[in-house]
């Protein structure tokens, strides 16, 4: 039986969070008045994330604050089981690309668990490169008309040498 990667639902939740950011943002990005996103806490509908039944209508309802979300019990169990497999790879030092190894040309380099956590953190920071003021729909750029210097930007610059080694991460 094929299960999704261990933290897939977490990523999906995160994606929906981002939707809330961007939902009222597309209009702002094109010089229109952004519509405030209502709080999902007041939504009467709850979309249960199970991993296989999310519809376009659900996504829009969540993004526009008309539905709250929950994770199904079955979904949480799948996360637990899948994470157990990941933990086995980590604890036994088995090679798994991007899980126990580094990326790209460094894919043969395996790291101990503590180093992998630090590597993951660094990887997030270095990938958080900014792409320009005008592309930030709800952030400081749109609100104040200027770019803000962020830790992610500085960190990405600092990590430039490792960035270049990710030339084939596919």
């Amino acid at each position, binding site marked *: 039986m094929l*299960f999704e990667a261990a933290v897939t639902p977490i990523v999906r939740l995160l994606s929906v*969070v981002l939707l809330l950011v961007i939902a009222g943002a597309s209009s702002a990005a094109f010089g229109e008045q952004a519509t405030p996103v209502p709080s999902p806490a007041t939504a009467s509908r709850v979309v249960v994330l199970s991993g296989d039944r999310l519809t376009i209508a659900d996504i829009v309802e969540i993004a526009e604050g008309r539905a709250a979300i929950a994770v199904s019990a079955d979904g949480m169990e799948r996360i637990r089981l899948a994470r157990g497999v990941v933990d086995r790879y980590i604890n036994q030092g088995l090679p798994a690309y991007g899980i126990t190894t580094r990326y790209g040309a460094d894919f043969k380099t395996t790291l101990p668990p503590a180093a992998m956590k630090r590597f993951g953190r660094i990887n997030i*920071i270095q990938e958080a490169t900014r792409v320009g003021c005008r592309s930030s729909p709800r952030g400081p750029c749109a609100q104040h008309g200027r770019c803000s210097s*962020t830790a992610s930007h500085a960190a990405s610059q600092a990590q430039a040498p490792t960035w270049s080694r990710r030339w084939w991460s596919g």
Partner: protein
Amino acid sequence: MNTNAVPENVEYGNSMGHADLTANAQAAMSLLADPNFELKAGEATNLLTHNFISVALAAQVVRRAQALLRAQETALALTMEGFRANLTPLRQVGSRQDSSGSQESVRKDIQALLKGSRLWESGGPRQLQDFLSLRHGIHILTALRLKLDQNVPVLESFANSNQRSPVVIVGTQELISVPDYDTSQVTLGMDGLRQALGVVAIGSNSRGLKMVSHPFIDLPSGLVAGDPDAFDGIYTRNITYTMTSLARAALMETTPVLLLTESYMAEGDEDYSPAFPNSILMAQKLVGLVEKVSTLEALIGSVAIERRVRSGA
């Protein structure tokens, strides 16, 4: 998330790398800043390598396009009523197959909108043949409907799929590499949707122009009572300039981007995945512009109806 605690500093579009890579990383930064969040080994890869943001934004575009289709059907019905169009396009004559049912759907919507119209009465005043964008209006909207019908299941499949590697197989306790993050299908779908929206803009603009232009229509140009400078109709030049400008601006957002791919030169997804966000960003602008064109067409159609009611024509 249900309390609307969302990261504020996330940018989207033009990411080098996996389509949503930069936005994913910026969102993950907010997690790293949370003292209660612990990043476990292996989680960074999953937080970064997916395209759920793009899929979700594409879903919003599709929903807006679905609403736009309904608005366009209304505008077309108003134009048909205002022009006193022939209703032959609403007849199923069997000369064209409609395997998807998309044309039948549009036809039924228009029939419902025109329910009770005098256009259904036999022997009413008709021109022998209406102008082309009016005759083809239903087919143009059918193209949009078809693209939406095709796009929805593909997008929903992506929304319910794992888009990253590796994948866990619990049964055999394995982690395997599965390159399921290619976005060609959804990019192609979004490109096709934009093409269909572009044709809708062309048709709507053309109908609007001809509705205010005698002798395409039997009413005076500008739909005025007689004096071309009167303000009781639609001042022809302004509204046609506006509609055409909007339609042209819309067409600028229809260029397909799937093939703007640097291919696999770098042996990674870095070079082509950004096409999906680019197509979505263009679609967002495009839908907004076509909404405006549709509104103006509906306005013109309504004024034409009013002119006929007032004059008893």
